[in-house]
């Protein structure tokens, strides 16, 4: 759970640090096993592999036909981006419920740009969506950080406002695949070395954000703020600007996922991405990010997103009717948080025992 405190290299707290376990007291094998068992990311990845394996054994074409291999990676790409942004926000002990509406705005913006400016370069569209998404995130961040008001309420408000904006803007208009250039739509299905481009984009974003969160000063600050906002303030961290940064990142990634949405599905209406915010939060929770902040990784959130999407596709193959998918997802979320609770309780007990023994 508390990822920050188990990381090697963290200085022991206080002068009377408990006796540390010598590295040599554990064999390499057992050390690797405990690391693997403790790592939430690996655990969730194992579940993912198990789901894919089960579906593949039942119906080999789930993995081994070229189309399904593509879909396996392509479908989660959008949710992965949303989950990565959401994970960063949740790590700071906030939440961003407006991402589904931001996605709708930039998805429609993408279509609109192509319709109104034939021949517009794709890069411009991507940049425009990123900037608009970041600006919408900036609004969230500024209100939350400067107003010192709960993010849940503010982003619930902006969920309605942003959705209202796109509803007003788009009306009952629908942008169809024929309105967008073939080059852009091809992006939705194009593959490099049999890996879909959209998935590559998501993974690239994941790698950059993950590296930044793991190593950079402001990334570590996010964890500190999420663990204890008051202490972070007293410690002199720039809490406000970090919070704004987290929301801008989440908004920008939601903006980017809007472009991906347009490329992937080809049809955009004002209802795009409705309810995606809760899916993103669910992916983050499944991925082991504590809902009260301070721990978890974007890797976990991304794998959680893949698992969430893959399970939806695997269930019909495993003989469970489509209609029950959502129930299984719900059970999965509950299972994940209960498991977290059990594991962290066990770890706390062990730490207490270790302290009392010394």
């Amino acid at each position, binding site marked *: 759970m508390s990822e920050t405190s188990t990381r090697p290299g963290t200085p022991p707290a206080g002068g009377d640090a408990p006796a540390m376990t010598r590295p040599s007291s554990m064999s390499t094998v057992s050390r690797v096993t405990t690391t693997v068992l403790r790592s939430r990311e690996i655990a969730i990845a194992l579940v993912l592999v198990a789901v894919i394996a089960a579906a593949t054994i039942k119906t080999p074409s789930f993995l081994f036909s070229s189309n399904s291999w593509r879909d396996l990676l392509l479908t989660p790409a959008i949710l992965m981006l949303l989950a990565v942004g959401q994970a960063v926000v949740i790590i700071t002990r906030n939440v961003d419920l407006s991402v589904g509406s931001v996605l709708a705005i930039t998805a429609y913006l993408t279509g609109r740009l192509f319709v109104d400016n034939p021949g517009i370069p794709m890069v411009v569209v991507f940049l425009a969506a990123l900037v608009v998404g970041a600006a919408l995130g900036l609004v969230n961040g500024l209100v939350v950080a400067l107003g010192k008001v709960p993010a849940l309420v503010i982003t619930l408000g902006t969920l309605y406002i942003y959705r209202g904006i796109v509803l007003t803007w788009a009306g009952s208009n629908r942008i169809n695949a024929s309105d967008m250039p073939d080059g852009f739509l091809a992006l939705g299905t194009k593959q490099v070395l049999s890996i879909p481009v959209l998935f590559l984009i998501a993974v690239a974003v994941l790698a950059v954000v993950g590296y930044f969160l793991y190593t950079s000063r402001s990334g570590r600050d996010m964890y500190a703020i999420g663990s204890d906002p008051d202490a972070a303030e007293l410690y002199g961290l720039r809490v406000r600007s970090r919070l704004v940064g987290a929301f801008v990142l989440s908004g920008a990634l939601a903006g980017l996922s809007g472009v991906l949405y347009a490329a992937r599905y080809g049809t955009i209406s004002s209802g795009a991405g409705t309810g995606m915010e809760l899916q993103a939060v669910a992916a983050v929770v499944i991925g082991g990010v504590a809902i009260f902040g301070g721990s978890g990784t974007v890797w976990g959130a991304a794998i959680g997103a893949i698992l969430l999407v893959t399970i939806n596709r695997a269930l019909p193959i495993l003989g469970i009717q489509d209609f029950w998918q959502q129930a299984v997802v719900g059970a999965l*979320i509950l299972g994940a948080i209960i498991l977290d609770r059990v594991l962290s309780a066990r770890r706390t007990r062990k730490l207490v025992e270790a302290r009392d023994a010394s």
Partner: protein
Amino acid sequence: MTTTRSYQTHQHSLWRRVLVTPEAAVIALLVLVVVWSETMVPAFSGPLTFPFLVLDAAPILLIALPMTLVIVTGEIDLSVASVVGLSSVLVGMLHHDGMSIPVAGVVALVVGLLCGLLNGFLVAYVGLPSLAVTIGTLALYRGVAVGLLGTRAVTDFPLKWTNLAQSGFLTGRLPYILIPIVVLGVVFVLLLHFTSFGRGVFDIGLNSEAAHFSGVDVARTKLVVFALTGVVSAFAGIYYTLRYGSARGDNATGLELQVIAAVLLGGVSIFGGRGALHGVLGGVLLIAVISSALRLENVTVNVINIIIGLLLVLSVLSSSLLAWVSRLRRAGGVGRGRSGPRARRVAA
């Protein structure tokens, strides 16, 4: 033997404490909007406006009552709309299989109670964060509802029962659904504001550890408020089914955010420990009146979304802004010492 203890009197006079509150602000805004609609929107004063307003707002109004208790304890319940859907599906299925509506309704209420108990158990006794738990059960209950009925819809409800949900006294001017709304409203006002249970609910929201040490059974109280939310949501589901004469798995999708928006707009603090039911009533009606008036003016639902969102943001920002203004004023008058809400909160 007797020692006299002097308590500090309230800092502000009674009228200020009653009138300068978020609840009063919401109600004043509601009155303004009603007056504005009456004068500016010709169709608003028509005989059908009020009954339809009540019929449409009833599910939100009903669920907002227990939701207020949940939020005052500092928790949240996102699964209410899924319980509405599940209860709707159960009523439809059981009726379709030949059960009478009252019996099917009782089954739906019991299932709603069980849904609420599961939420409450996981939050109160297992100690899991309610935001995460109820996102999980949101998917779970909705999933069961959709799983049970698939894409089918049950619509063959007896006219006797659908009429009960759609009409009212005085040739429909006062919908029958007002009876359960008023009864539940009174029950919840008494429960939250006039019983020791209600004081416990506020105590938990302010400081659950202190509440525990002052004898409040924190876990049981939380279990009860979640269970109440489940039952009332199931009741709203039965009403929803009969009102629209249709039981579908996706009934009332997204209603949870509307309920929470209304409760927060009514001045309930998302951090818990603060709020009052008359404010919540004002919040629900404010949204209902604005939607109704704008719809009569042929303003599309989009603008209504924007207005609700803005109101929500402003309602939480306003307290921050007020605190900021009063801090500025206090900074002006040096030597007056620390007073006002901040000092009182420290004392509490």
